[in-house]
């Protein structure tokens, strides 16, 4: 929560800056009456301190409200995951974690017996890691070609790439589906089934024009002299890419990796549309489907929340450790994660 703290410090500087305008207007009188001058200063200092404290209280109040709004869904999720179904129907807005009502961790144990959460988890991990890795290779090489190499039609090619960004991604869904279906990849049963599912889930999203653009701009900020120096030092283009450009663009690459991973973790519509074999469900569909299919069509919400809590843990960990990069990446790319 570094960002919150930052906000606090910048906010509480403000009163300090705004207050001194008052004593300044009085300096004319104060200078002629030396003693008054000193007394005024003391008063002003006191006033300044009070304002500072009031400002701080205001800021913290505001932040507390905002923090509550952000934390509320998570709190509800955890509280609900601890409840039995009966208690959930009695008081589903009860946010207290333990006292009253039958509460324990049985939902968490049940998640693994009732559903195939582990499998979905692994599916998601495989798809996420593989597509991120392949996507990174494609992004790095394209950005390198577009920024460092010179070839005919380079600008036209890049403009063409950018133009595809004008089309909303949802519009591709139907064409993509048709392509995938025509290739027979929606047949996900039998021997090659897993591979078809894998291709379906990864291949359509390997090229991200936006990431290429982001990295290309980053590469172009690297001074040309470094390239010339490396040439004199006897490196090949590929070695220069590996030894100089990639390390220098590492923050951007980490941002891209994180955003891509988050995307893979969150994606819902495409896998829902194309995954025909339940064995290859990703975690998002798993969470949605697994708990509602029972006898009465009503989802077991506490159970579902327990599963969601479990799924969120890795994301929490990732966020805590890579917070700096995620915030930087999100603010840099101007898109939400």
């Amino acid at each position, binding site marked *: 929560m570094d960002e919150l703290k930052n906000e606090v410090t910048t906010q509480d500087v403000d009163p300090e800056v705004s207050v001194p305008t008052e004593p300044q207007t009085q300096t004319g009188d104060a200078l002629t009456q030396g003693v008054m001058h000193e007394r005024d200063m003391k008063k002003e200092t006191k006033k300044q301190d009070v304002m500072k404290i009031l400002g701080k209280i205001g800021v913290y109040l505001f932040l507390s409200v905002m923090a509550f709004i952000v934390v509320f869904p998570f709190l509800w999720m955890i509280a609900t995951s601890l409840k039995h179904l009966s208690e959930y129907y009695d008081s589903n807005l009860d946010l207290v974690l333990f006292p009253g009502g039958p509460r324990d961790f049985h939902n968490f144990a049940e998640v693994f017996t009732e559903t195939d959460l582990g499998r979905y988890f692994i599916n998601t991990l495989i798809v996420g890691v593989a597509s991120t890795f392949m996507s990174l290779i494609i992004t790095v090489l394209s950005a390198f070609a577009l920024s460092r190499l010179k070839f005919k039609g380079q600008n036209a090619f890049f403009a063409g790439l950018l133009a595809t960004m004008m089309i909303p991604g949802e519009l591709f869904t139907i064409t993509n589906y048709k392509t995938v279906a025509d290739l027979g990849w929606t047949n996900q049963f039998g021997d090659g089934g897993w591979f078809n599912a894998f291709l379906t889930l990864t291949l359509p999203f390997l090229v991200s024009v936006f990431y290429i653009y982001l990295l290309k701009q980053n590469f172009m900020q690297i*001074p040309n*002299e470094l390239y*010339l*120096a490396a040439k*004199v*030092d*006897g490196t090949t283009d590929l070695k220069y890419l590996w030894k100089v450009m990639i390390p220098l663009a590492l923050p951007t690459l980490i941002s891209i990796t994180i955003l891509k991973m988050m995307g893979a973790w969150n994606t819902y519509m495409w896998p829902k549309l194309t995954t025909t074999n339940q064995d290859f469900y990703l975690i998002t569909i798993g969470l949605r489907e697994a708990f509602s299919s029972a006898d009465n069509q009503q989802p077991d919400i506490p159970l579902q929340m327990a599963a969601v809590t479990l799924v969120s843990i890795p994301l929490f960990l990732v966020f805590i450790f890579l917070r700096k990069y995620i915030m930087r990446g999100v603010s840099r790319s101007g898109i939400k994660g």
Partner: protein
Amino acid sequence: MKVELRNLTKVFPSRDKKSGKDVTAVNNFTFEIPDGKLVGLLGPSGCGKSTTLYMISGLQQPTSGKIFFGEEDVTELAPENRGIGLVFQNYALYPHMTVQQNILFPLQNLRGKDKMTKEAMLERAYEAAKLVQIDELMDRKPSELSGGQQQRVAIARALVKMPRVLLLDEPLSNLDARLRLQTREEIRRIQKETGITTVFVTHDQEEAMSISDVIVVMKLGVVQQTGKPQEIYDNPTNLFVAKFLGTPPINVFKGRVENERLYIGENAVLDVKGVKDGNVTAAIRPEGFVLDENGPLVCELSNVEIMGRDVSIVSRHSESLNPTIRSIIDADNRIDATAEGVRFTLKPHKVFLFDAESEERLYFEV
């Protein structure tokens, strides 16, 4: 290793498609850089001096002409095979590597029979670092170094391969005035110690004059004059060279020659034997003026700046092509700063005459 440039020409194709005019950055440059000397390529920006340097390095290919290192034609050779070290204006250190990694980098790229063991590389890197006195800073990142230190790292990186030719592109322009003085002496020392043939590019004439064995003055891609710094200063071949060298700059007057006498305004100021009658441009070095109550050059006194060792007199004259005339005289001379006018006689060897049209030097007997 002497470096020979033969009729070197570089033409850049025009970016402006309509006019289609190509830009000739370097025009027919022929010069031999003697072995083990420090040569300064001097000229205003856009005169082709950096392009020349890049062609010697191999980063740019000449449009025509040849480059020889010793007897070997290297015109077509790739930069990494020429055995050069290059220091860039902004140093071009790899920002993500430590000083040591930066210096090691050229060695790690050696292939085939030149390949070195890790220990040998480290030893060489330390040798190079010692030479430029940065062996204490090996674990720092470039961003943690001062400009002067970064400069030394760049030189160490260029030297570590033991290049045959060291090329420096405006090596001092990013340093502050004091550091510049210090670093240029340093470069001189390193060059003397290693004995590597060195070419360095600068637009600062003082810098070039102070450390070069030979300077080459360029203008718009054409070599104007080459020679030892003092020779060029004492004997410029044209007005451009006369104006470009020297601080404070040379004073330029409109003048005419009649009966082998130089007239500036109404008065004959100097005997110039051997010059034909006609309009000329007269250039006078600041130290070429002598205070004389009856002197023929009558100027309007603006102010007097006392600089300790000598006195700088700022004055005006209707025929001067510069707004003010700056003359430097010994501080022993007493001058009344409140006087209206000041009169000078001229030292003949500090006065250069140039044809008013062609700006070429007109020689007279001193």
